[in-house]
């Protein structure tokens, strides 16, 4: 069940508090999340009471300092939470990850007043958060978003903004109360016009569009956001006009480490399930685990999980030290989501026909893995980010 004893054990190098955190989340996830995960996936149902229980235990406040109302854990500790939740239920891990993603910028760039007003209910999990960047015409090229924010009042200090446009694929959207929404105040300015807004459910002019019909993480519903001249008061603008793109990228840097951790947990779950199956299933006069070809597969799966975990922890530790994380986060997210896809696919293979059945969890794990190669920057985009850093260093070295 647990990852302890793995080549790069999940508990290696952790502080006492981090180990207790890991055990606590593992215990909770095993007992409360794992049993219903398959059923929630079939029903495409997000279970708010489960989210609330995680919030009561402080999962939603984990990586924020105590002064800000958080639990005071490091970002490395946050990756432990993600790993353990995703081990049991990837959809719930993504709900949680997006919730944190949508409040981190408020913590990092918000005014004192905004932090107080906005973060309180999100840290306690009374309000669920969503992150609204992607549009029908702008995914990878996020600087091309068209959702328009028109100033109302004096140009220099507008009283409010009138927002018109739409967002698609917004995770948590159907159940969320708070949305971090990116819109442009100047469509000709490209990324320099993008501005972040704090949007609440029920604001006049804001409604949900269609619900996405997804392949995986079905218990983490996503939907379209539609803004029809929605009026957002100026005090809900996060950061200055034009700062939105930087805010989005910085939030995604952290978010990608969180996604990488979730992918590591998902891959570990598939690896453990496959290893158990190979020991239990007998064919050709012995357990399948005696077949060298399958042992090689298992070893390669373990290799990918260990690499994913190592890069994820390295990125989180860089963040905890206050270093730039762009490249490390991209490497971690790309490696870990590819690991999750590959390991879950191999797990289905090792289970044979039963692996393809919806009676067992490995097919869900495989469907759940795919999205992570796409959201929070496709793995192609991560290659671009890494290449840019490599070339920058090469140019500097000359």
């Amino acid at each position, binding site marked *: 069940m647990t990852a302890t004893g793995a080549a790069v054990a999940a508990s290696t190098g952790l502080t*006492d*508090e981090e*180990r*207790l*955190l890991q*055990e*606590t989340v593992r*215990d*909770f996830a095993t007992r409360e999340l794992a049993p219903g995960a398959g059923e929630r996936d079939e029903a495409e149902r997000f279970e708010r009471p489960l989210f609330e229980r995680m919030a*009561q*235990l*402080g*999962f939603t*406040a*984990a990586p924020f300092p*105590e002064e800000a109302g958080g*639990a*005071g*854990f490091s970002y490395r500790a946050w990756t432990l939470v993600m790993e353990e939740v995703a081990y049991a239920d990837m959809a719930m891990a993504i709900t949680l990850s997006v919730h944190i993603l949508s409040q981190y910028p408020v913590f990092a760039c918000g005014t004192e007043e905004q932090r107080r007003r906005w973060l309180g209910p999100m840290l306690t999990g009374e309000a669920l958060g969503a992150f609204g960047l992607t549009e029908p015409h702008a995914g990878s090229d996020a600087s091309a978003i068209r959702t328009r924010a028109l100033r109302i009042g004096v140009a220099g200090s507008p009283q409010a903004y009138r927002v018109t446009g739409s967002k698609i694929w917004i995770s948590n959207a159907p159940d969320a109360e708070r949305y971090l929404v990116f819109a442009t105040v100047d469509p000709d300015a490209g990324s320099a016009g993008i501005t972040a807004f704090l949007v609440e459910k029920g604001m006049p002019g804001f409604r949900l569009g269609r619900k996405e019909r997804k392949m995986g993480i079905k218990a983490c519903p996503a939907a379209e956001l539609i803004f029809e001249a929605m009026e957002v008061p100026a005090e809900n603008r996060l950061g200055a006009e034009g700062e939105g793109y930087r805010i989005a990228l910085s939030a995604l840097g952290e978010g990608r480490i969180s996604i990488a951790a979730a992918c590591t947990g998902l891959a570990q779950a598939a690896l453990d399930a496959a290893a158990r199956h190979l020991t239990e299933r007998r064919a050709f006069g012995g357990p399948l685990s005696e077949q060298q070809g399958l042992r090689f597969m298992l070893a390669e799966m373990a290799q990918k999980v260990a690499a994913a975990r190592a890069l994820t922890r390295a990125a989180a530790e860089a963040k905890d030290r206050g270093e730039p994380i762009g490249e490390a986060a991209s490497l971690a997210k790309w490696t870990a989501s590819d690991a999750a896809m590959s390991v879950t696919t191999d797990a289905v293979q090792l289970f044979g026909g039963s692996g393809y059945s919806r009676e067992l969890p490995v097919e869900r794990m495989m469907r759940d893995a795919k999205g992570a190669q796409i959201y929070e920057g496709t793995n192609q985009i991560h290659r671009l980010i890494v290449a840019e850093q490599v070339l920058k260093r090469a140019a500097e070295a000359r």
Partner: protein
Amino acid sequence: MRIVVLLKAVPVVGTERLTSDLRTDRSGTLEANGADEYLLEAALKLAETSGAEVTLLTIGPAGATEALRKGLAMGAASAVHVADDQISGSDGTQTVELLAAALGRLEYELVFCGADSSDGGGGVVPAALAVRLGLPYLSYASQIEPAPDGSSVRIRRLNPTGYDVLEAPTPALVMGTQVLGEPRYPSLRGIMQARSKQVQTWTLADLGFEPSAVGAAAARTAVVSAERPPERGGATVIRDEPDAAVQQIVEFLATRRLL
């Protein structure tokens, strides 16, 4: 009101092993004994409802710290860890003597302990400790209700037709069962707060014990042999719609005259 909860650190359930001299191997990872956690939960509820102060007491090797850390993270106010290499190998009577000595240095109205420990035991510690301390012994509690002023305690003990009510003046020793309720998970804030809570470590000398009075050499009981339980026979797994499955189970039980 002050409650001392006896919390044993046991090998992680499922990983128990015997040493070559037939003692429980405590060198691996230890965790809080499950049966004790029910009592800790009961104590923490009393802390919430009536402001009781909860202290943990354990006797065990250095690895017992993990169990204490979890108990503190769950909400206990402080902890006492009796640790000394000489203690290893002590039997039930010596454990009782050590616990009595440690409790002698603490102030309390109630002592809580679990019904058994998952790494094996003789079933004597709670009752013997009560006798040794001259405390009223209220066992197998399914509910614990101290008087508002802390001068007495009343418990319920389940019996085949309902429950008995037992009442005694404090200080008293209560042994309870899992009917008390599921233990809580430590909260993340609790884990962080536990860092600044006090854990006192007491040695044999602190308790006024000669090293020769405890440990295997001085034990009055010894394990002479140990055997694995026989392998379990093949299980019959019934996979069917609920109604049909129930029918088959009923028939199975009926053929064995178990219904």
